[in-house]
């Protein structure tokens, strides 16, 4: 059963929500297993998977060599032949090492075989800067994957969404890339004890508003919500829409909100150039053009490799203050 929003009398962290989703799906379906570096006893460097190997054993929570292309490729073959692998790519920055397996194999197999073969696998990985990890451990590469037909791309922004969306991802018959925000693992939120899933392609209105629409993904949802709070003090009512999946994209909810408010900013932690912000801004421009009172604004990560020095790194990603400032400008309140 899918539930419209998070109402629960229990709070758990984002990491716990991910772990619960995996544990529940592994109990439900013996075909589900986890493959990746340091996933078993270590439970990943972020400890997201801690405890799973104790319950399911190393047969189903399997440590691999440091071979992203190899184990992702193995997952593709396993998925084609009856299993449901969940691959763990330790950092989103390592996706490029597995890109042939994801882009040329997983994403193409169903189409190239005229629908005869399927690849029901999940690639779990992460995104997000500001952990002072520099350019090779900080990227948000979800736009790269969203570009490829055949892949679905999921960007949960709360513990509730993470659990419901991951369960849906595992049950999906297609390759799904699931991006978790590294900074969010300790974030707590309401998650019901009972079984639920969240369908793909259904945006969530994280906050209702009337003056401006902030479309925000993953790590930027919290930023947009904080911006909305700032704006409230200025008498600007911001609506925050979280698409939750970039593929499939719930264009309708986004466009409807933009039509209602007449103004929109798209905030995403990927690079701004050719990115998710560009795509969603064009969806809004095409769908809500006659209702817009201002050009659609995009706010992504700066088009530079993520720098190490905090003094520089903090400049590269959108902040609540900068989003609020941009919103005020769009509303003519500078």
């Amino acid at each position, binding site marked *: 059963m899918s539930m419209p929003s998070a109402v629960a009398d229990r709070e758990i962290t984002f990491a716990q929500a991910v772990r619960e989703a995996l544990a529940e799906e592994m109990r439900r379906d013996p075909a589900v*297993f986890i493959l990746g570096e340091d996933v078993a006893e270590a439970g990943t460097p972020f400890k997201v998977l801690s405890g799973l190997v104790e319950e399911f054993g190393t*047969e189903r929570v399997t440590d*691999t*060599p440091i*071979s992203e*292309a*190899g*184990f*992702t*490729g*193995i*997952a*593709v*073959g*396993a*998925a*084609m*032949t*009856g*299993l449901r*692998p969940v691959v763990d790519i330790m950092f989103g920055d390592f996706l490029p090492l597995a890109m*042939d*397996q994801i882009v*040329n*194999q997983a994403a193409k*197999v*169903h*189409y*190239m*075989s*005229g*629908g*005869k*073969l*399927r690849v*029901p696998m999940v690639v779990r990985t992460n995104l997000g800067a500001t952990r002072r990890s520099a350019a090779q451990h900080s990227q948000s590469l979800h736009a790269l994957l969203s570009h490829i*037909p*055949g892949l*679905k791309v999921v960007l949960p922004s709360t513990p509730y969404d993470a659990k419901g969306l991951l369960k849906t991802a595992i049950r999906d*018959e*297609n390759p799904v890339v699931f991006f978790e925000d590294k900074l969010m693992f300790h974030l707590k939120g309401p998650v019901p004890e009972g079984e639920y899933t969240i369908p793909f392609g259904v945006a969530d209105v994280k906050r209702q508003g009337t003056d401006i629409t902030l479309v925000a993904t993953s790590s930027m949802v919290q930023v947009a919500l904080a911006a909305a709070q700032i704006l409230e003090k200025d008498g600007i009512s911001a609506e925050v829409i979280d698409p939750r999946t970039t593929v499939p994209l719930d264009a309708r909810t986004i466009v409807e909100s933009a039509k209602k408010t007449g103004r929109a900013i798209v905030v995403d932690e990927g690079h701004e150039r050719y990115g998710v912000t560009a795509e969603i801004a064009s969806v809004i421009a095409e769908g809500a053009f006659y209702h817009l009172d201002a050009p659609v604004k995009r706010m992504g990560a700066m088009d530079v490799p993520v720098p190490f020095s905090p003094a520089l790194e903090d400049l590269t990603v959108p902040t609540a203050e900068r989003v609020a400032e941009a919103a005020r400008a769009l509303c003519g309140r500078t």
Partner: protein
Amino acid sequence: MRRTAPRTETQQADALQGVAREQWLAMYEQMIKIRAFEEQVNELYRGAKMPGLAHLYTGQEASAVGICQALRPDDYITSTHRGHGHCLAKGARVDLMFAELLGKVSGYCRGKGGSMHIADPQSGNLGANAIVGGGAGIATGAALSAKRRGSGQVSVCFFGEGALGQGVLYEVMNMAALWKLPVIYVCENNLYNEYTHYSEVTAGELRARPAAFGIQCVEVDGQDVRAVYATTRRVVERLRAGEGPAFLISNTYRYFGHHVGDVNRAYYRSKEEELDWKARRDPLAILADWLTGEGLADAGTLEEIERRARAEVAAGVEFALAAPYPDPGEVDQHVYA
């Protein structure tokens, strides 16, 4: 003319004990069918009836046939850009393959894959792959899946020696060895990576590469279907007993160019070399000589087999030429399951 004599190792003789005459004739039929199939592909290309290009398997028939004959119908294979022989040997139908080559909706992949992507899960074929080394992960994953499901299936990863340049192959070989996966890495060494002799781009000894992972390596005369079959049978037995992966080097030669359009080849290999392989190492002739020499078949029997195979191929071409193209509405079908 003297042709490479079949090997007489005792192990091979043991493996060949009890192989019925019918099975040798079936192998002959498969080999001649592949040869006739590829001749027709070339004709379709030259007659501008086939979109794109194709990479012919002619000359290498004994490799695919000898290996696939040693497999169960539900065993897996992954194949390459030069994949028609693997597909046919594993049990694909000629007509549906031609239809795919012509981009017709009746083809194996509804015309969406073409020559380099034929997949036929029914015969265990997880697909040809146009990325050199692209099948390595898939084949190894299929072996992992077979092992976890306890199905007893094995997985065969066909690739040309050019794939030895791809890192992912070594990544998955490492895991296959660690986890004792039932997969055979079949390196079909036809001496050329496109237009470059493999020795120019391959350091060290081929056999040292699987050896580094503790993977058993066997090498066969890929022109002698009896040797290929006998060796593969032994290897498959080991795999089914859970002894882990194997690496099989099948030494072979492609008669035509890298693809159908590669007709002027003098800059990378000599006419003499080509003629020598065809004259002394032709897989069909080697088997035919042995069959007649042993009194297992006379010339008439073999001619009858050839006639049957050619008729099947001709009918397949006719079927494909008459088959419809996909409707425009197909274009966005099967992007997602």
